[in-house]
């Protein structure tokens, strides 16, 4: 009886694996998100970008091994890692713009104050 249970469980687990369809669409979305993050200037110095690239590579490897469940998990996480990296880079740029503009305004105020 024990053996039958084990068999049944094994079958169930196997079925679970076999039922996962290949996540082609997710892979495409993830590759696109990573590419877009790279295009705005995210590089592996940003932790989230490094994670995105590593996970995308893992997902691609899993696709090759037909381990579709893992591939989907890694690809989904990599997509959001890349989107966060992109948002952080864009934010950093806007912060720099703000700092530069503030410096110019301070300079203008100072000059106006110095005029006779």
């Amino acid at each position, binding site marked *: 009886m024990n053996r039958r249970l084990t068999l049944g469980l094994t079958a169930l687990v196997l079925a679970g694996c076999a039922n996962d369809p290949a996540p082609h669409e997710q892979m495409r979305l993830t590759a696109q998100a990573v590419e877009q993050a790279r295009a705005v200037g995210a590089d592996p110095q940003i932790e989230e970008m490094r994670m995105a690239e590593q996970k995308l590579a893992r997902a691609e490897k899993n696709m090759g091994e037909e381990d579709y469940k893992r591939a989907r998990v890694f690809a989904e*996480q990599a997509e959001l890692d890349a989107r966060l990296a992109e948002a952080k880079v864009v934010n950093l740029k806007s912060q720099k713009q703000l700092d530069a*503009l503030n410096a110019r305004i301070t300079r203008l105020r100072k000059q*106006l104050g110095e005029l006779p």
Partner: protein
Amino acid sequence: MPSLIRNGGLLLSLALLAGCASQQSQQVLTEAELGFQQVKEDPDVLRSAPKDVIRAGESLARAERLSSYWGSAEDVEHYAYLSQRYSQIARQHAELNLNQERLAKLELERERLQLALREAKLLSAQQQGQWLEEQMVSLAASETDRGLVMTLGDVLFDAGRTELKPSANRTILKLVQFLQINPRRAIRIEGYTDNSGVAAENLELSRARAQAVADMLADLGIDPDRMEVKGYGEAHPLAENASSKGRAQNRRVEILISDEQGKLGDYR
């Protein structure tokens, strides 16, 4: 009997493993719940990134649902992770939005100050009574083998300082006017010093003075993209450094003016 013990041991270790996994997934889940709590109550985030907040909530609900099933620790962690990420992305978008609003406001403020400064400078130049006269004279630039060059003398800076003195106003305004009439022309602002003092410091001083001129022009509305800044330090003296008169001539800022297509010559 022995098999029962063995099975018991196996079950126990399985239970332990599951316990460990779920403890970790419970922690990730708690973090995701906390993250979602913060973004969903923040009106700025809700306004800037409603979709990401919704997705954070959906992923979190999924993780919570799965956490009541045995053996789903990995899935719980996965959806909790996604939820956490959506919350973080939403927060970044909100910050970006706020920054852009601030930028727009500051840009208006900058334009207002720029206009005020230009008018004030015009007024102070007129009060000096020479504005009209200066208007008649064309830009005091000389044609050299490098092209059109305008020279700002050393009297426009205090010794060792990089700030432009108010007496520079008229010359600078003339240059602004010239650049406005010739919108395609670009300039290279070059700083020079005499040879007294340390060469490296002179190089830095010459660059900083050239930059001060560029900053002033930018403050008066000239697009910084039209300006290059270069420090030459003690190089290319106009006169001998032996006399104080020669040294004064060598301390200067030169403004090299491009051709009508905006093309500047090579660095010297």
